[in-house]
């Protein structure tokens, strides 16, 4: 029996930003199994620091984080000329309302995924985003 190895392009790098280490680990496992290179960050500050050194194609960003919340991190990313075009998806425990959706559009957020995640829906949405 041959092992199926999925090779994504060199650019398939995803960063997961969540203050709950278990969430980072779980999503990392799921995405690595799909063949992506995954970088974890447990705070907004760590995300910004790592982005300076390791460029990524997609960021999965938790909304509620102590210190600097997801919205603020994204605003900083969008203001940085070398990072501003990174695709970003929000991770949230609940659906956003009307004003929230307007803000997502203002911040050029591709999508949002509600937690707890449905693994097959999650991987198929990430795949679609990465294929764009």
């Amino acid at each position, binding site marked *: 029996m041959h092992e199926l190895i999925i090779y994504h392009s060199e650019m398939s790098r995803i960063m997961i930003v969540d203050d709950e280490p278990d969430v980072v680990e779980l999503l990392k496992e799921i995405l690595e199994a799909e063949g992506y290179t995954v970088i974890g960050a447990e705070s907004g500050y760590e995300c910004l620091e790592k982005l300076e050194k390791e460029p990524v194609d997609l960021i999965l960003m938790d909304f509620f984080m102590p210190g600097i919340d997801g919205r*603020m991190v994204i605003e900083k990313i969008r203001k940085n000329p070398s990072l501003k075009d990174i695709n970003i998806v929000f991770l949230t425990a609940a659906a956003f309302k009307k004003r*929230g959706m307007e803000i997502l559009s203002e911040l050029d957020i591709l999508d949002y995924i509600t937690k707890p995640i449905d693994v097959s829906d999650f991987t198929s949405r990430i795949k679609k985003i990465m294929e764009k």
Partner: protein
Amino acid sequence: MTLNSDIEKSFIENEIIGLIIPSVKYEEILIMITDILSKNYDKILYISINKPCESLVSGLKKRKIDTDRFHFIDCITRTKKNMLSTENCTYISSPGALYEIHYAILDVLRKQEIDAALIDSPSSLLRYYEHMDVLKFMHLLTTELIVSRCKGIFPFRKESARQVRRSIEMFADKVIDIDAGSEFSV
């Protein structure tokens, strides 16, 4: 359009509404909001973090606002004197008792048909809790209000709690930023 009618229209069209109010006009505008609520809804839940129910009721009555339409959750009176909850007011042991506040809100939402809930003010909770705890509580509250088909009104003082305000904005339908020069009637 006056501020009164603008706010009234927003209450009709939206479920979760944030209001950013200049501190100097906070109390006056809050009275105007309670007046609008009393004229448009049968039952209103007023969650007061730092104002005693007794003085709230007397202030509202002076303005001829029908206080019978309100159920109060008073988080401050019992820090000074022991009070038993009444039909129209639930007393909480302290503003720092977030679980107790949460349980009281759920209890009122479950037992009464509340049309609108006003929390005065989410930023007051920052004196007792970390930003993240307040945010998670507010987020949970908005979800419960939506499930109960109850409008949620969250007034903030413009000069305070900017980060909490910005975060709650994500879970609101509309945020009204009131200018200090806005004309309104109480």
